[in-house]
């Protein structure tokens, strides 16, 4: 099983080294390091306000660290905790917008596949403002998957999912892993530890390894 630790000669898809970030006097991250290799599914947990989302925002480029570095091999897909999609556009138009961003030409086929996997194809021409919270969350997640990224970074991805969608989510994650891609999931609770290759808890501004058993 992959180790999620830095070691000489091991290829890393994502490397976070000694990242620190403060907001005023509040030092949210003091020295956070994380390494994710191909085919790894890594989880980060922690209490509310512990710095999980700050770390994620630094990894994807939404925030600048005060010190430390983030390096990545390959394309990142990012699903934020907030619903960052376009309410007045339909599901299809949202896919179109993100496909243009990723420069994905065959997006209709990929969209159809994702709509089928996450079971919300019947809403393809429905404006997002008319969707339930759970379906919006599916869209929020699906557009992060659209360009088949090498590293998928997910912030509280399954809040609002029903059980069936939750299982579909892990099916897609498992497929991602088989294709030697990496997945980083941040969640304030993890109730199926064995689904992860490595788990970390953000505490006192650092990442502490946790058992996956």
């Amino acid at each position: 099983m992959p180790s999620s630790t830095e070691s000489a000669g091991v290829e890393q898809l994502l490397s976070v080294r000694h990242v620190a970030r403060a907001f005023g006097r509040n030092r949210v991250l003091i020295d956070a390091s994380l390494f994710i290799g191909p085919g790894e599914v890594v989880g980060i947990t922690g209490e509310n306000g512990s710095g999980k989302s700050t770390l994620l925002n630094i990894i994807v480029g939404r925030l600048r660290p005060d010190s430390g570095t983030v390096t990545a091999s390959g394309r990142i897909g990012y699903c934020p905790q907030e619903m960052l999609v376009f309410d007045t556009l339909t599901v299809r138009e949202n896919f179109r917008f993100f496909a243009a961003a990723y420069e994905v030409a065959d997006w209709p086929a990929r969209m159809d596949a994702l709509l089928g996997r996450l079971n919300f194809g019947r809403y393809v021409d429905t404006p997002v403002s008319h969707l339930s919270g759970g379906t919006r969350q599916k869209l929020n997640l699906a557009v992060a998957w659209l360009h088949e990224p090498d590293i998928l970074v997910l912030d509280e991805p399954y809040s609002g999912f029903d059980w069936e969608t939750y299982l579909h989510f892990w099916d897609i994650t498992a497929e991602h892993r088989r294709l030697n891609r990496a997945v980083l999931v941040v969640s304030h609770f993890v109730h199926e530890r064995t689904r992860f290759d490595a788990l970390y808890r953000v505490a006192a501004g650092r990442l502490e390894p946790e058992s996956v058993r």
Partner: protein
Amino acid sequence: MKPPDSRFGTALTLTARELLRNRVAVLMLFIIPTLFYTIVALTTRTAKVPFKLASVAGSPLAQVSERSSSLIFIGTAAVGLLAAFLGLSLVQKNIEANRRLVLCGYRPAELIGARLVVLLVVVAVVGTFVAELLPLFFTPERFVLVMAGFALAGFVYGCYGLLVGAIFRRELEGILFISLLANIDAGWLQNPVYYAGAQNQVIIRLLPAYYPSQMSIIAAFTRYGVGRAVTGSLVYGSAFLALALAVYFLRMRIRRPRPNPMTPV
């Protein structure tokens, strides 16, 4: 293999669709100026009043009906005000979703460029509509230039709206900042009758609606040249636009992870 959709073209199409789906707002773009005109027509006299043409050399006096001058003034104010709120909405709405698009590969210039094009098209349409209503009340001396003056008011205040939208994260602050300037400037001080008797005309000349208002007034009632008014409007609008772009780019700034030197991407 089919090439990917153009990012700018997609942003333009979808931004326009977002706006058009807000049907009440689109309708209000036409109802508000019509209502303003109706109120002016019902409340003003047709008696002639004198006022100075401030931007013309020597500031000659003009004698025109109070109703006609008020219609030009309110038309300019309506287009400016509507453009400012539209600019605010275009930038502020979904700004975090737009930032997500930037993380996914969009350039901020493509997103703001699409919004600017939509804004300019709407300003041109509303400016034309507001000018087209004028012949119901009186015949302007140079109709096309009056229309251009309205459109320039929309350009100046639309760019001001973009700037306010780029600066403020919350809608209320944006609305208040627009109301503050637009009400005092376009909605009050640029009234040619008020301007003629004002104690401190320098302040009025420095405000954003001054040049577009002057252009509409000069074109509506005289044959004097409007070159200075056009230049002043374009300079003012472009300055707002440049500031809006600078703030927008700062807001959209991201710091992508560096490529791993060990592994080819």
